[in-house]
């Protein structure tokens, strides 16, 4: 069933999905507390939200509001002190570390603010990495294909330090999509880029997301970027407002 996606003009602030498609991500009463000296610091407090398949969601908020912590919990990179996270109906927050890693393999893609490319690997090798870890045989062909799609077909043998910031983020986007994930998480994807480059990267990410029918969850403090999503969740002091 093709999900019904509302027009960007009708963007709404809500923790409920903007379509009736089945949920890709369900977070239920998530809390994250960290010890700070003798006392406990609550970073996330009782957050619940649902993201429908194919939906794009922006998590916005000021610095220290808990955006990145929420992204980490939704992506299964971190564990909540309370509450649960489910992907496509399967609760993943209670899985063992290795089982969770296995679920992420090929199913979840990431785009980071600091790109997180391995400096000793060429652009092609960086993109091949998720496929190699999953044991795919056609890693090189698929990675080459994705680098062509992000416009870096001629730069496959370049090391990250030989690429500009925007080019590095495009490599990271190719890496996020290469394994055909169902969900892509992006943490401040334009945070390290100038406005023009940032806009190009965002355009690329949304185009690919649309083409692939991926669910996209991104964290940003840039409301213009957030406005390109179907929906946004606003956080303040660890709570959805």
């Amino acid at each position, binding site marked *: 069933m093709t999900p019904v996606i509302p027009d960007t003009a009708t963007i709404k602030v809500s923790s409920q999905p903007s379509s009736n498609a089945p949920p890709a991500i369900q977070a239920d009463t998530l809390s994250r507390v960290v010890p700070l000296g003798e006392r406990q610091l609550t970073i996330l407090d009782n957050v619940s939200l649902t993201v429908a398949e194919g939906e794009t969601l922006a998590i916005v908020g000021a610095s220290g509001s808990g955006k990145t912590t929420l992204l980490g919990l939704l992506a299964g990179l971190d564990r909540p002190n309370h509450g649960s996270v489910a992907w496509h109906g399967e609760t993943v927050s209670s899985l063992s570390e*290795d089982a969770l*890693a296995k679920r992420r*393999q090929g199913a979840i893609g990431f785009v980071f603010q600091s790109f997180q490319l391995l400096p000793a690997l060429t652009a092609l090798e960086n993109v091949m990495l*998720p496929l190699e870890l999953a044991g795919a045989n056609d890693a090189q062909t698929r990675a080459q294909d994705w680098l062509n799609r992000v416009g870096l077909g001629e730069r496959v043998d370049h090391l990250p330090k030989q690429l500009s910031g925007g080019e590095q983020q495009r490599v990271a986007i190719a890496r996020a999509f290469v394994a055909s994930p169902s969900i892509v998480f992006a943490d401040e994807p334009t945070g390290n880029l100038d406005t023009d480059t940032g806009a190009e990267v965002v355009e690329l990410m949304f185009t690919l997301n649309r083409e692939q029918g991926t669910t996209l969850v991104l964290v940003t403090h840039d409301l213009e970027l957030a406005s390109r999503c179907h929906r946004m969740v606003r956080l303040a002091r660890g709570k959805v407002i």
Partner: protein
Amino acid sequence: MNLILRFVRRELRSTEARILVLALALAVASVGAVAMFADRVKVAFANQANVLLGADAMISGDRPLPEAFTQQALAMGLKVTHSTRFGSMVSAPAKDGGAAKDSALSDVKAVSSPYPLRGEIEVHGANGERVPLKANVNAGEVFVDERLATRLGIKAGDTIEVGKLTPRVAQVFAEEPEIAGNFMSASPKVLMANADVAASELLGPGSRATYRLQVAGDRAQEFADTIKAKLGPGQRLETVRELRPEVRSTLEKSEQFLGLAASFAVFLAVVAIVLALRRYLKRELDTATLFRTLGAGQRQTLMHFVGQFFVLALIACALGVAIAFAAQAGLAFAVRGLFASTLPPAGWMPLVKAFATGLVLLLGFAIPPLVALSSTPPVRALRRDMPTASGGGALAVALGGAAVLSVVMMQSQDLKTGAIFVGGIVALVGAATLLAVALLWLIRRFVRSGKLAMLGGARSWAYGLANLDRRRLSTALQIACLGLGVMTLITVGFVRTDLFSAWQKSIPADAPNRFLINIQSEQVDALRKLLPTTQGTKPAAFYPMVRGRLIAVNDKTVSAKDYSSEQAKRLIDREFNLSASSTLPPGNKILSGEYFSATEQGVMSLEDGIAKTLNLNVGDRMTFDVAGDKVEVKVTSLRKVDWDSFKVNFFALVPEATLAPLPKSYITAVHLPAGDNKTLPTVVAAAPNVLVIDVSEIMTRVRSIVDQVASALEFVFAFTLAAGLLTLYTAVIATQDERRYDTALIRTLGGTRSQIRSALIAEFSALGGAAGLLGVLGALALTWVLATRVLKIEFSASPTVWIVGFAAATGLTLLAGWLGTRSVLTTPPIQVLREGA
């Protein structure tokens, strides 16, 4: 596996991986090259020492030796010769047709051709010089030594009576190479052909004779090792080490010096590897995080990294072994002129050991941090500042320690030495870190006191010094590692120069080179006047000597069969030389008990080694048979004897009064300079019964070994130096990334190049100075321990080594630090900042 190999190929593009591989390769190379070269040199030394034996190996037996031994030697491609040694009366035919014959008890050696296998028989030339004799002893002929010729008044061409034979004297020789045997044997020597033994009818059933098989060739040691297990009762393997304590002592010290150099190479390697590993693992943290984020489980991540490290280690070890082989071949080529013969071929064992050393070291140190690395939380991809698991904590220390222990044990094959070495390293690292923390505290106080400002207001210097304090832990570790590297280099330098010359000096130039034995009491005064004084003033010392057979220990009769060791059997079979000294002779040291006083009776001081061989201790009673009289003594002290001194030394000493009633002769030792051709003929004319033993050949051998060790050490030192410099470099660049980042930041904030330059110079000078100070202090302590506890030679601290060491440490650290970071002054700051801290 494919992914691991692909990753290794990719990883090798990074500087960190290359430095790690280089550090490990150099470690393996230095361990391998030093061990391999030392092995070759040791074998060469042993071969040279074997000249004193007349062969590379010798098997003796109380009965004829089995033919199988000879066959085995021939099968191994060795040169073989047989000899039979026995005592016999030799007579000159009665002169002028009279009935009276001159006879002498002689040490007869029946030899087969060729003889000897090593060294040469020497005769005196026309001008009194010694020339080698190129002739074999043929049937119907004998060679006699000059003593016998003088004693019997015979010359070449005469005939003598040996048993039923009357062979012709073909040669009168000065010396034959086999001088390693018991030189206290007073009898003159006769060499006859083995083929004549039967006809001489000298050896009947029950005759006392020693049957020998001497071999020479490349595989002599292998032959000796194989035969050792097959020796039957009454058969023994003779080595120079067992026969001559001076040579044994010299060989052992040579091996210790070379072994020390190899151990230092291991130590430097460990420091370099740990430092390079630390930097590499820091980088790998990002890879591990990404692996985990992209869905690799902990186990998959761990297996990947362990596999990757294993392959990296294999590459580094293979590279190291190749360098080691080339380097030791280069060393051998460079020193080819220094050795009397070509160096024996290199064995493969040191290379195998070096390869294993590399694997054990890298994996030993890497596995605990890798386990920690594989558990990196994936959320670190979002939060770089997240605390990560440490390098493995106690497990890392334990496994690293075990790795070093096993490596040192591989080197020394001795658990105790290994444990001391590892314990020493742990203590050194601990002490170095503490000292580094203390130095940092002093620097902090100095900076805060404002005294620096008074010295010219150098604010950038204060910034540079404060930088060290800011990275307190890593700086302390860096100073400790640099300090340990400097310490090792200074120590090796010191061993090479001061310790070594102390050892060389322990064989004084005027050490006695002639021993005179069999001197009768009434000849002592006359000879004292004829002999040169020692040390310019003192007349030569004469020591009484009584020969006695050990017949009982603690009232229990003993015979050779009561002992299992061949050496003990030999001691029981032969006669002991007992001497007397009312005071402890110079160069002797009491290990247990107390040296007797002049008034005591029935007491004895024994040499430690012989006491161990015979399983004797203080309090045991020994009974000797001296010419039919029983002499009973109680062991009251055990002594260590300085055999290197070449002075007259005795295994057994008793008070003078004990020897007074016994039949005795005297022994003395003198130094006769080369070219002194007068003294000995005068002595022999005055006392024809006196036997003169020339040990100058042994001394020449020992001196030449010492000189060759000196040259070998020079080359080994060069290798250790290379390993040391790499260690220093890895220590300096350990914090290079942070420093580059900070510097770029300062430039962004308006810091000028000259300010940054001053700050960097201040930082590296302080780092180098602190490491230099630590290195010098550590080296002082270490060399003192080495001199007094290990090599047992006099400790002398030459200030030059320390000053040069300190200055070089500071200068090199400054240079390496500067070279590593100066590019930051020319690279645009944004580029450095973008690359990240």
